[in-house]
């Protein structure tokens, strides 16, 4: 008989159709093989195409589910905040304490003193922060943040230019392109919808030319691109302006398209030609800024303008910079200049959402009588922010995705707001934090400032699965189960028409509970009588599903664990606007693509010009600070994590490219050899990580994948390699997060650790 490895006696194995729903660029099919109440392995989609195959993150999930580090019982802090010393308490004691503190803070300071920090750790419709948010709303409301690090710059640009975030095409439509530009976009690691990488492979096989613009030679560039153009971080808008200059000065712009569908071309042309500042934005002007040869810029501009249809995919990473909106706006405007919008094979850049049932009616013309004047106050179901006037630099006149209320604090300023309160110009004095599915200390900029701020609060409660760096600061830690231990529905990410139904695979471990159960137990303690929290998971999911017209067969979705929706034709954003502009205006104030944006013009802010411009900022490569800290820091996504989630999974940990990426040209003069322990530091903090010396990053630039767990030693050196120990916390006025705009120095560290 042949030997069979690793197979025990045959007991019945049940396959549970479920899925993966952390905050990466996919929601993928998982098939949990369960024996005796335990997941013994996870497989994925082998069914009809298009398959929704999980990546390594999902395949490794068993080690997260059964990690010895999972939180099992409610905990109460006994040491100092951040010290990580806790004692086990009962659920009753924990929930009584949380309820007492909520009521105490409300009575003493009012609801605005309650800071709610919902995170993206769970992307299901039901679990995660959704129910706690509803509960706190019924309790009288809370203060929260606006702005999402991933995309806020791209979102602002998308809204300003197009009036919507639905600017993406179905991925399969890329096969209609003649040229695809992958700008700051690395789906090999970030997934960007499960079918994206396979589609890029098919595009390559079809002979479609692909060009990657990125400071790193990413796996996406290495696998798919015919040409790699390394670019200095934070200068993307300069290269895009120079491309636009070439197109305009050579008469390659699509004048008919611009006349018909866009406004403000002339103003932008004046900027390009240097009529405002005397500096024409030529490729020669851009070369020393971007470090891209002028000829390379000009060649790409001509190719993009003449090889129609061409898709410019503007990744979010370059918009995660100090003035990131300008890059994202410049990219969208380049799409308009070349008329690559609304046609198969083209692409509009922008936010790039393609499919969403929730926003199915978003692009339809609004009934003007239903419009309310938001200038006096914006309605909200959160009593604390209801009626607050719009934030000065918000796109409040547009509908959807504008984060307009002034009652919220930009996420990157939360730590400053805790420390300064109303005296610092913030809307509230914050006294307690209610944190759900968020490792905010780790994932907001400037972690050391965050640690200071969290020590100042009177009370912190967190719903968590692991003792994260954030959880270490909590007074009460409520242990939450994972998506394999409860029911949920995961809507798709940005572009694909499908839903994942997450059937419960196994019972919750130890004493863990779902976020819904926690709310169910907390509601009566807060005096909230709402039967909604007493509904079962499935009842709530049926209710949610009934509001989505694309969920046509709940039973089949639950049975199969996935609902793949067939669209009559691939999505092409703005197809209707281009075909029939009279009946389908763009949802901007003017009804046109706003190269020159009316809404921004009213703001009259020098850092948000009404046409996109290349701007420097106080921590750019050309500022005095660069003499002290000469290296530009990128904080990209690791393929082995979803942000800081999955950090503790050994199968993934061993595959991680550890440490700071640094080019040999920068490593050699610093006496740094591959694998050496090095310190990466600036005025905000210092991390100690191994050196990954590689040609795959351009000289002058270093990269630390974000998500490593903040772990300061007694000298304040972060041994966990958290990228945000180094990042800036000043947002752009439009909301872009400066995660890729920090300057740092790197030096060889004592080699006492085991590399």
């Amino acid at each position: 008989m042949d030997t069979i490895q690793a197979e025990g006696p045959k007991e019945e194995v049940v396959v549970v159709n479920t899925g993966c729903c952390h905050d990466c660029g996919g929601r993928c099919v998982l098939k949990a093989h369960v024996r005796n109440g335990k997941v013994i392995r996870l497989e994925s989609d082998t069914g009809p195409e298009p398959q929704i195959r999980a990546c390594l993150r999902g395949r490794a999930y068993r080690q997260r589910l059964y990690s010895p580090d999972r939180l099992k019982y409610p905990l109460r802090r006994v040491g100092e905040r951040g010290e990580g010393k806790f004692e086990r308490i009962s659920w009753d004691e924990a929930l009584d304490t949380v309820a007492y503190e909520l009521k105490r803070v409300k009575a003493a300071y009012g609801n605005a003193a309650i800071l709610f920090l919902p995170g993206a750790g769970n992307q299901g419709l039901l679990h995660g922060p959704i129910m706690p948010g509803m509960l706190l709303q019924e309790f009288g409301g809370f203060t929260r943040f606006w702005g999402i690090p991933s995309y806020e710059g791209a979102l602002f640009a998308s809204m300003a230019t197009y009036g919507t975030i639905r600017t993406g095409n179905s991925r399969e439509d890329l096969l209609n392109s003649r040229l695809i530009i992958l700008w700051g976009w690395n789906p090999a690691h970030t997934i960007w919808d499960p079918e994206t990488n396979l589609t890029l492979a098919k595009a390559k096989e079809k002979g479609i030319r692909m060009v990657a613009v990125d400071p790193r030679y990413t796996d996406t560039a290495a696998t798919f691109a015919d040409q790699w153009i390394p670019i200095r971080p934070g200068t993307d808008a300069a290269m895009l302006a120079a491309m636009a200059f070439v197109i305009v000065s050579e008469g390659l712009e699509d004048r008919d398209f611009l006349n018909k569908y866009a406004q403000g071309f002339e103003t932008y042309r004046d900027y390009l030609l240097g009529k405002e500042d005397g500096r024409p934005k030529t490729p020669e002007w851009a070369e020393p800024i971007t470090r891209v040869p002028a000829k390379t810029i000009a060649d790409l501009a001509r190719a993009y303008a003449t090889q129609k249809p061409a898709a410019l995919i503007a990744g979010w990473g370059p918009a995660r910079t100090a003035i990131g909106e300008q890059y994202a706006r410049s990219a969208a405007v380049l799409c308009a200049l070349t008329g690559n919008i609304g046609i198969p094979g083209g692409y509009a850049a922008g936010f790039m959402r393609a499919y969403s049932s929730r926003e199915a009616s978003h692009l339809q013309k609004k009934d003007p009588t239903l419009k309310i004047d938001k200038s006096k106050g914006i309605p909200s179901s959160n009593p604390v922010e209801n009626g607050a006037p719009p934030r000065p630099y918000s796109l409040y006149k547009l509908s959807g995705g504008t984060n307009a209320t002034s009652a919220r604090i930009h996420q990157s300023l939360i730590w400053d707001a805790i420390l300064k309160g109303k005296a610092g110009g913030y809307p509230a004095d914050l006294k307690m934090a209610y944190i759900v599915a968020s490792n905010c200390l780790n994932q907001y900029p400037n972690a050391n400032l965050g640690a200071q701020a969290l020590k100042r609060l009177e009370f912190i409660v967190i719903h968590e699965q692991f003792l994260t760096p954030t959880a270490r600061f909590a007074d009460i830690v409520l242990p939450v189960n994972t998506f394999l231990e409860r029911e949920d529905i995961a809507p798709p990410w940005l572009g694909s028409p499908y839903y994942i139904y997450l059937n419960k695979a196994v019972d919750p471990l130890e004493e863990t509970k779902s976020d819904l159960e926690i709310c169910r137990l907390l509601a009566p303690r807060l005096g909230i009588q709402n039967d909604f929290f007493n509904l079962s998971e499935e009842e709530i999911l049926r209710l949610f599903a009934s509001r989505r017209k694309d969920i046509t067969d709940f039973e089949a979705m639950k049975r199969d664990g996935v609902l793949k929706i067939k669209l009559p034709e691939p999505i092409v954003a703005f197809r209707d606007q281009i075909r029939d502009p009279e009946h389908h205006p763009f949802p901007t104030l003017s009804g046109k693509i706003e190269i020159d944006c009316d809404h921004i013009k009213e703001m009259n802010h020098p850092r948000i010009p009404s046409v996109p411009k290349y701007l420097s900022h106080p921590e750019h490569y050309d500022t005095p600070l660069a003499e002290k800290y000469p290296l530009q820091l990128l904080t990209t996504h690791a393929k082995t994590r979803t942000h800081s989630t999955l950090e503790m999974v050994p199968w993934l940990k061993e595959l991680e490219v550890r440490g700071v990426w640094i080019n040999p040209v920068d490593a050699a003069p610093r006496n740094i050899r591959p694998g050496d322990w090095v310190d990466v530091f600036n005025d905000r903090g210092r991390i100690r990580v191994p050196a990954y010396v590689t040609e795959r990053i351009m000289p002058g630039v270093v990269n630390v994948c974000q998500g490593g767990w903040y772990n300061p030693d007694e000298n304040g050196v972060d041994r966990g390699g958290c990228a945000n120990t180094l990042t800036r916390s000043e947002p752009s006025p439009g909301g872009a997060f400066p995660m890729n705009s920090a300057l740092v120095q790197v030096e060889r560290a004592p080699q006492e650790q085991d590399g």
Partner: protein
Amino acid sequence: MSRIGFYFDQTRCTGCYTCVVACKDFYDVEAGRTGYLRVLSIEKGVFPDLFVAYLFSPCWHCEDPPCLKACPAGAITQREKDGIVVVDPGRCLGRDQCPEKCKKACPWDAPQFGPQGDAKMEKCQLCLERWEEGRKPVCVEACPLLALDAGPLEELRKKYGEGQGAVGFKPLWRFRPSVVFKGKKPPAPY
């Protein structure tokens, strides 16, 4: 006999390592140990002229397996019906006793041993138990790029061609490894 083997499309491989994790999950290979398949990364050149490729690297189930000849205990055999090279841990002498003659004989490092001195050889057996259930190897069913396939070699050749080269693959065809490649175009010499 219908020999079965692998197909690997190197031009599609992004180096995501989903196959590696799927294999470890299926066979319960803990972290820190080399699994039954590896993905090798090949990086060449100097900024900005770079070349990167990945090479899927399981056991290639050679028609003339060097490991089989090297094994002093007759623990390695080849299945008559499909050519899968299998190991009988009961006969394997163990890591230190042998020591690791099969691993040394294999140009592709397919045989693996655990950390203990008496660890028996383990390696990719082409998921032979899955074939019996009508399923392909777990790595093949895991690959998000559909860059992997497995099946009778004649069928693979009919479907994918006769490709024999991949960047980073040691071309020791004299052992007749059971694989069809779609290789990445090698870089120009730097």
